[in-house]
């Protein structure tokens, strides 16, 4: 309701404004036109009759009075009647004037006197028209009736009176004519107060010529008064509505505090008013400045206390507006200090805006509590909320501890089973340097249309410009400038492709000896491996001494069971079957010795550069002898490893990066066990810092959850990147990984193992440590102790050793580690404790 009434008021103001203007400037002609339409007149006539009938005959009222009442009550007969009854029932006949103004005034002498205005009035022959038209008169009358405003209006009335004479007509008018229609009591506002001219008004003489300005100011005053009274006009007699109306009036003042200031200034001069009667006519223009800058005066100024100099309200006033106390209360609110904006709203008086914490406090507290978790609920505007509601809403404002990211609370394991997801498999491509791993994978992706022709053409062109055209396909995987200029894969490259049965993730490992740590990182994420072997003369042999062997041993010791051996570059040996079989035999012997089971090894001849037998059968007639499966078929037939979906979450961070503007911290890595979903809180070890998963991406597609075996990208929130390092383990906060500074492990030695400094590798994790004790050598098959405290562990022996770490690391029993020293893989180990 408050806003509505406010709106209405605004409308009224507009309406009145027009009126005011016409009043001001057409003062002379005013008497001429009555501005009533025929309809109005008819209504007026009927209304007059009705009122007359309704009124007690004892009440002596003139038609004019009735009509005026009707006019102001908008032809509401009932209201008019009661108004007139009230007004005239105990009729005290004033002999010389029957004008309702005088009568009214007689009843409000008290009020008028209290206002300190004792203006000589002439017996006015105020016409009804005037009363009706001069919009300031009637409202001012009612203003007087509305007792609460007495003193205030008194001051403003004086002002108005000051200003009004500024108009040229008044200036020229004689004193007698000026007061000719002024009633004895209840002096119309524009007639009041010239007596109280202040010196400073005179001081404004320089600007005094600006009568227009003064007129404008006066108009504005008037407008406000009228707006207030107009708003009141529609009042019902209900107490509440009255209160609202009062408050409404307040609001008008709230918008323009200047009257109060002036009133305050005037106050001391109120009493001596009579001493300076001569002054009353002096046209004292108001100081222009305050008027002009009116708007800039903010209600927020410190409230100025005023002396309460008002007289007691009259009987009528009290009846109309409640008991004196009530009124006083309101008046205090009204006058004794500047009103705050919005105090007009009904709820304001009851509202206890400071009962609860302020919105700022709420927000601050919420921020402190939520530690960055934003509040979803906007803090309520205390100005609008009513007391109770506010308190309630404040209560509701408690910010929950839940993070921004809402968890869907999925049962990921179930979801995973339901989803009937395509088989997923990650495979690592291993082999000696320059055996064509990257090129083979580039070819695979190109033939499967994962990479489009255009990109490949572009790469080809680029490769040709630096004279390495054969590297074009490898560049699909090798993207850094370093890798391209040197023609060597440095770091693991990840890519995805899909066949009808399975979704594959390629982990293209570097073959170079120096980058074995990276290869280990890749192999630790893989389900199975593709070992690429160069069929070229000498290449195979050099590879077998080099990384072909080391890689194969590494993937095996990291738990990879299935191996596809791609005998590459068959085109260079003219698809010689003998060569292929020779390689196959040698490799099979070596691999079975490295405890790969023979049935899990597949040999496939292919040519990566030309793409034969990769996705399609070899077209070369020399390759007719081979009828087996192609590389892609072999990949498809691989049974992916089982996933520990229901175990507690373990994810090894293999990359920490900035995922974009919206995702400042992202990590990626393979989920070794368990599952996760958006909104989960995770714990990064060894920093033991919690983080929230904001979003998950698998193969560049946003998803809600991820399970073991997948290599998702997690966008994190609420963690600083310094707490995330490569090789750290992300785990379930309820089942955190323990940090160990020393562990016992069973190792398979590749080299001689002495108590010595070693690098410990676990996925991306790379740490310094040292073998402190050789506990025992063990039987390879049974695991029985063969020799206690051996002096040295020889290659291919199995031993139990104690490794001490430089810093504590998240390692668990059953974790596979690789021990390296001086660029050689010394041993692969399985953590025991």
């Amino acid at each position: 309701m408050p806003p509505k009434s406010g709106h209405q008021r605004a409308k009224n103001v507009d309406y009145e404004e027009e009126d005011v203007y016409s009043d001001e400037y057409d003062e002379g002609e005013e008497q001429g036109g009555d501005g009533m339409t025929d309809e109005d007149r008819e209504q007026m006539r009927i209304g007059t009759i009705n009122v007359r009938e309704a009124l007690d005959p004892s009440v002596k009222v003139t038609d004019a009075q009735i009509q005026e009442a009707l006019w102001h009550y908008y032809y509401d007969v009932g209201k008019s009647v009661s108004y007139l009854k009230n007004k005239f029932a105990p009729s005290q006949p004033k002999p010389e004037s029957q004008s309702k103004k005088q009568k009214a005034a007689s009843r409000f002498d008290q009020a008028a006197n209290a206002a300190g205005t004792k203006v000589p009035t002439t017996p006015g022959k105020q016409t009804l028209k005037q009363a009706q038209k001069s919009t300031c008169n009637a409202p001012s009358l009612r203003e007087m009736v509305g007792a609460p405003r007495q003193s205030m209006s008194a001051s403003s009335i004086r002002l108005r009176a000051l200003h009004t004479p500024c108009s040229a007509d008044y200036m020229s008018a004689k004193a007698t004519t000026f007061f000719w229609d002024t009633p004895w009591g209840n002096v119309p506002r524009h007639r009041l107060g010239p007596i109280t001219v202040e010196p400073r008004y005179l001081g404004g003489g320089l600007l005094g010529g600006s009568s227009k300005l003064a007129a404008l100011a006066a108009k504005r005053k008037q407008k406000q008064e009228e707006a207030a009274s107009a708003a009141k006009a529609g009042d019902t007699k209900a107490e509440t509505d009255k209160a609202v109306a009062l408050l409404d009036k307040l609001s008008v003042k709230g918008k323009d505090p200047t009257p109060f200031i002036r009133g305050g200034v005037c106050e001391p001069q109120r009493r001596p008013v009579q001493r300076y009667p001569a002054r009353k006519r002096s046209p004292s223009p108001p100081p222009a400045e305050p008027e002009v800058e009116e708007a800039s005066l903010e209600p927020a100024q410190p409230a100025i206390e005023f002396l309460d100099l008002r007289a007691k309200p009259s009987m009528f006033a009290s009846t109309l507006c409640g008991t004196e106390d009530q009124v006083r209360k309101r008046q205090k609110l009204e006058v004794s200090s500047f009103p705050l904006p919005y105090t007009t709203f009904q709820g304001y008086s009851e509202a206890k805006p400071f009962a609860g914490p302020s919105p700022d406090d709420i927000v601050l507290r919420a921020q402190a509590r939520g530690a960055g978790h934003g509040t979803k609920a906007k803090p309520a505007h205390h100005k609008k909320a009513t007391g109770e509601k506010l308190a309630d809403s404040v209560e509701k404002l408690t910010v929950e501890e839940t993070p921004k990211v809402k968890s869907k609370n999925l049962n990921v394991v179930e979801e995973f089973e339901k989803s009937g997801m395509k088989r997923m498999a990650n495979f690592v491509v291993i082999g000696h340097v320059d055996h064509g791993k990257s090129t083979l994978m580039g070819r695979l992706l190109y033939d499967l249309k994962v990479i489009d022709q255009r990109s490949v053409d572009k790469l080809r062109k680029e490769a040709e410009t630096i004279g390495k055209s054969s590297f074009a396909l490898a560049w699909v995987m090798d993207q850094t400038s370093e890798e391209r200029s040197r023609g060597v894969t440095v770091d693991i490259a990840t890519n995805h492709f899909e066949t009808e049965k399975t979704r594959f993730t390629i982990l293209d490992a570097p073959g170079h000896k120096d980058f074995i740590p990276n290869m280990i990182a890749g192999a630790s994420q893989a389900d199975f491996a593709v070992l690429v072997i160069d069929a070229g003369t000498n290449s195979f042999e050099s590879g077998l001494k080099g990384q072909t062997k080391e890689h194969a041993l590494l993937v095996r010791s990291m738990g990879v069971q299935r191996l596809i051996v791609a005998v590459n570059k068959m085109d260079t040996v003219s698809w010689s079957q003998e060569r292929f079989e020779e390689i196959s035999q040698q490799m099979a012997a070596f691999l079975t010795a490295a405890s790969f089971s023979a049935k899990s090894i597949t040999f496939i001849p292919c040519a990566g550069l030309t793409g034969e037998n990769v996705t399609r059968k070899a077209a070369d007639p020399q390759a007719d002898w081979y009828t087996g499966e192609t590389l892609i078929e072999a990949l498809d037939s691989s049974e992916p490893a089982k996933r520990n979906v229901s175990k507690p979450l373990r994810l090894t961070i293999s990359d920490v990066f900035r995922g974009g503007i919206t995702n400042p911290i992202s990590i990626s890595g393979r989920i070794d066990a368990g599952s996760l979903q958006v909104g989960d809180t995770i714990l990064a070890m060894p920093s033991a810092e919690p983080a929230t998963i904001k979003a998950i991406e698998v193969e560049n597609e946003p998803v809600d959850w991820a399970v073991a075996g997948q290599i998702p990208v997690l966008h994190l929130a609420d963690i600083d990147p310094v707490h995330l390092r490569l090789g750290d383990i992300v785990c379930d906060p309820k089942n955190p990984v323990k940090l160990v500074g020393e562990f016992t492990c069973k190792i398979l030695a590749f080299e001689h193992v002495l108590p010595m400094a070693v690098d410990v590798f676990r996925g991306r994790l790379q740490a310094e440590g040292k073998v402190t004790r050789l506990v025992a050598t063990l039987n390879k098959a049974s695991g029985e102790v063969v020799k206690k405290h051996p002096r040295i562990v020889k290659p291919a022996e199995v031993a139990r050793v104690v490794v001490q770490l430089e810093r504590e690391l998240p390692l668990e029993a059953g974790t596979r580690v690789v021990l390296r020293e001086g660029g050689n893989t010394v041993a692969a180990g399985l953590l025991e404790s």
Partner: protein
Amino acid sequence: MRLLKSQIDQKNGSGFATLLPEEPEDMWHAYNLIQPTDLLRARAIRRVSKTSDSGSVASQRIALDLTIAVTSTDFDIGSGQLHVAGRVASENEWVKLGSHHTLDLELNRKFTLEKGDGWDSVALEMLREACETERRAELWAVVMGEGIANICLITEHQTILRQRVEVPVPRKRKGGIDGHDKGMEKFFSTTLSTLLRHLDLSNKGINQDKTVPLLLASPGFVAQSFLAYIKDEATRATNKPLLALIPSILVAHSSGPHVHTLSEVLASPAITAKLSDTKYARETALMDKFMTLMRQDDGRAWYGPKEVEKAVEKGAVGRGGGVLMISNALFRAQNVAERKRWVTLVDRVREVEGGEVRVLSSLHESGKRLEGLGNVAAILTFPLEDLDEEEDEVENGAEGDGEEMVI
């Protein structure tokens, strides 16, 4: 270290030596020399409180010469500070006998050391070594990998890790190559600025005419890239001291980004050819020789206190190639008997057997490798088997072919 005065009786080793440490390295020597029960006299500042007749207590800091009987020593490797704690051994006006005091040895402030149980051969050797005035080799090395760099100062007797730089470098990923390149750029700039702070080129240029060689070592191409970066940066910023340094930068290959791979770097012929024959390089070479023999497993290389002692007893560490390698950590033993044990062993090898004794610095990588082997190892002149006590079990040759391994 300058030997200002010494009065050491050759026969029983009694006497004292007055020493003046001149460089940070000397503190390390002092640390190795000063043993518990030794008497150390040095300038000290001590707060003395006096109670006047009226009972008021006035405390005052005064500088005085104090002699303490050492109870413990504390050496801070990073800052090269040595704190020697002990009890006052000679009373004076202010300090009572037996009250505790910790002497902070400082550079360019002399101290007098008197051995509690005489100067033994090892102590005398150390003293001699400490006072060698020949030019000391010094080398800065940066062992690095992608996103990790260890800045070390290698001196004659110690390898000091001055700073470890770790910058997260995003790995290469599809469409995110920028991240990797930017990360490397940031890593290089951080490493370079850190390195320059430690090298303090502007000061060095004035004080010393020699430029300290800088060794960059890494697996892969990181070191080369870093050198290229340094060159670019020096040219771009026309950093004259840095430009002057460039010719003395060596790039080497290491197998990893960790400090212990330095041993391998320094042992490589390419580096040893360029560097003077430092003690470090000699020690490293010796350790490598030992490791090779160990791998051959023919009983000519043994490690561990008991085994080595047995071998010495049997006269295997003698003339004609017998080498005893012992870490100086053993001589710093707080237990006097323990120290005596090792001194005796050294004396025996050197004087009785005629073998070679190498005291390896526990602060060098070679010393650390030795530490892993029990701080003492020996290369024997003839093979000895089964020096270790447990000879109960015989190697079990039965290995199930094709069976799943336990690992």
